[in-house]
C-alpha cells in the first residue's frame, strides 16, 4: 500500500473503514434492508445473503422464504432454471448445502436428486460442508497476488489459528482462498460472508478479526 491515503469508492468505505455496519456497507439510504420475502420478483433471485446465524435444520421453504422461492419460480420458463437461485436461497437459510438439502431442492423443483448433486458440486459458492459464522475468502489471484495477497491469507490463518478450509474452535471463522473477486484495483480483496473488504493489508487483519469477533459475541 502506498503512503498516500487511497480512498476506496466502494461499499467498504474508505481505506480502513472496516467497522462499518452491514447497512452502511449496503448503502442503506438507497437499497434499504431487503425483506426476506424478496421484494419485486425481478430481483428475488438476487438477494441471497451469507448470514452469520445459520439454521441447518430449517424447513425448505416456509414463511417469507417460501414467498421468495415462489417469486423466483415465476421468472423462468421452467423449474430447472430456478435451481441455482434455489440453492443460494437454501444456503442463506441453512448456511450450507448438505446432501439432504440437495435432495429437498430436487424434490421442490421436480428434478432427479443425482442431477442436483451434479450441478451443486460444479459451483464453488455452495458450501458443501458447514462453515463458521464468518466465511473469509481471500482473493489470491494475480492482481491481488502482485500486491501481497499471500501475506493477507497467511495473516487471516494466523489470527484465526486455522488451516485453509478449517473452522476455528469457537466456530467463528473459516478461511479459504478465493479466485478473482473482480475488485482487482482494490487489492487485496477479501469477501467475508456477503461483503467485500477491499485494500486489505496484513497489518489490518487483526482489527478486522477483532471487529468480527465482537460482533459475533454480540450476536450470541
Amino acid at each position, binding site marked *: 500500500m502506498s503512503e498516500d491515503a*487511497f480512498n476506496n469508492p466502494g461499499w467498504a468505505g474508505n481505506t480502513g473503514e472496516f467497522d462499518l455496519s452491514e447497512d452502511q456497507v449496503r448503502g442503506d439510504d*438507497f437499497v434499504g434492508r431487503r425483506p426476506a420475502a424478496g421484494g419485486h420478483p425481478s430481483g428475488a433471485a*438476487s438477494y441471497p*445473503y451469507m448470514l452469520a446465524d445459520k439454521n441447518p435444520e430449517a424447513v425448505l421453504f416456509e414463511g417469507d422464504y417460501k414467498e421468495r422461492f415462489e417469486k423466483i419460480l415465476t421468472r423462468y420458463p421452467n423449474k430447472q432454471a430456478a435451481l441455482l437461485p434455489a440453492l443460494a436461497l437454501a444456503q442463506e437459510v441453512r448456511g450450507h448445502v448438505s446432501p439432504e438439502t440437495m435432495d429437498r431442492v430436487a424434490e421442490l423443483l421436480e428434478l432427479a436428486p443425482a442431477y442436483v448433486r451434479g450441478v451443486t458440486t*460444479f459451483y464453488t*459458492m455452495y458450501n458443501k460442508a458447514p462453515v463458521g459464522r464468518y466465511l473469509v475468502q481471500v482473493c489470491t489471484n*494475480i492482481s491481488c497476488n502482485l500486491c501481497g495477497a499471500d501475506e493477507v491469507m497467511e495473516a487471516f490463518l494466523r489470527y484465526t489459528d486455522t488451516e485453509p478450509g478449517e473452522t476455528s474452535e469457537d466456530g467463528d471463522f473459516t478461511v479459504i482462498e478465493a479466485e*478473482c473477486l*473482480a475488485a482487482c*484495483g482494490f487489492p487485496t480483496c477479501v469477501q467475508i460472508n456477503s461483503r467485500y473488504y477491499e485494500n486489505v493489508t496484513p497489518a489490518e487483519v487483526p482489527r478486522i478479526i477483532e471487529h468480527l469477533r465482537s460482533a459475533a459475541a454480540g450476536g450470541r
Partner: protein
Amino acid sequence: MAYPYVSDREVRVLSKNFGDPAARRLDAYLERGGYQALKKAFGMGPDAVIDEVKASGLRGRGGAGFPAGVKWSFMPKQPTKPHYLLCNADESEPGTFKDRELMRWDPHQLLEGCLIAAYAIRAKQVYIYCRGEFFETTQILAKALEDAYAKGYVGKDIQGSGNDIDITVHLGGGAYICGEETGLMNSLEGRRGQPRVKPPFPAAVGAFGMPSTVNNVETLSAVPHIITHGGPWYRQWGTEKSPGTKLYCVSGHVNRPGNYELPLGFPLMELINDVCGGMRDGKALKAVIPGGSSVPLLNAEECAGCNLDYEGVQAAGSQLGCASVIVMDENTDIVKQVRRMVAFYAHESCGQCTPCREGTAWMTKILKRIEEGRGKEDDLQTLLDMSRQMTGTTICVLSDSAAAPVVSSIQKFKDEYLALIRRGERVGVA
C-alpha cells in the same frame, strides 16, 4: 466522497456517474436525460436501432470484440419463438473489475441499454447473469430495477409504447466458465456451466433452446449513448476499426490502479505513466498483461509502442481482451505469477475436454515443481508441447487461455525459468 480514479485524460461517457451515489436513483437518472434513448429507440423501430449500433462500430466489450450491431442482426427478424437477451455480468476474468463499477454506480444506464437491445433483437425477456459474489452490486441493481418497474420503464407496455420487456437479475454460483456465453446459457438453465459446441450459434439455438444474444455489461451500457447521439458521434473517439471509449481496468504495481475511461487506441505507456501515476515506488516495468489473465504477456520493450485498441495490442503480440491491464514491476516473480494463473485455470476447467482438464492440472504441477527449485530443463519443452496440444483443441478457449501466459512467459522470460531450474539442480546435486 469523490471518486479517486479520475484523470483529466479521461473521456467519461459510461463512467460519468462513478462516485456519485445520487446517480443510482431513478429520479436523478431521469433528470439527467435517462430513458430518453429508450423512447427514441421505440420511435426508430428495431432495425434502425441495429443499424445505428452498426454505424457506431461498437465492439463487444467482453473480450472477443465482435461488432455488437452485427451480432444483433443475426437474430431472426420475424420471431416464431421467444427471444432472449442475456447480459453477461459474470465478470470473472482476473484483472477485470469494470462491470461491477458500471452496475453499482449507474444501474439504470445498464437497464436502459438492456431494454434497447432487447427491443432491437425482439426479445421480451432479459436475464442479467451476475456472478454470485456480487451481493452488494446485485442489490443495487435489483433496487434500481424495482424502481424502474414501479414507474413503468420495465415490464408490460413500457411508457405506453405497447412494448413488453421484462428484466430478471440472476446470480451464478461461482464458476469462471459461466462467463463464456454458452456456459452462461447452460448455467442459466440450471445446468453445470459447461460450454456448448458451436454451431448452432446462440442466435439460432440459445438459452432454453431459443434464439438468444449475449452482450457484456459495458457493451450494453454504451448503447443508450449511441442511440441518443447517433453512431457517427461515437466514432469521434478511438480508431477506424476500434471506435469509441473503453474502460481500462488497471491493476498491479502502479500508483493509482483503477478504472479509467479513455478512447480506444490510447498508448499503453501513457496509461501507466500518466493516467495511473507511474510505477509504484518508482520501480522499472517488467511485464504487462494487457487484457486479463487469458492473453499473452508483453515485456517492457513490447509495451513501449503499444496502443490499446484491438488491432494495436494484436500487433504488439497479445490481445486487448477486456482491457484489463495488469502491470508487473521489476521485482515480480514471473514463474510464481504464471503458476498462480494456470492454477486458476486448473481450478476453473469445467472438465469436459481432456486437453484442458488434464493439461491445466499437469501444467500447474510442473510449474509448481519449477517454482520450488525441483524443475528440469526438459520441463520447458514439455510445457510448450502441452500448450500446443491445448490450443484450438477444445470446445471453448479456457484451455487456450491457460496456455497463453505459459508460452509467452517462456518465450520472453526464459532466463527466469532457467535460473530457478539450474539453482534447483545445484541444490539437488549438493
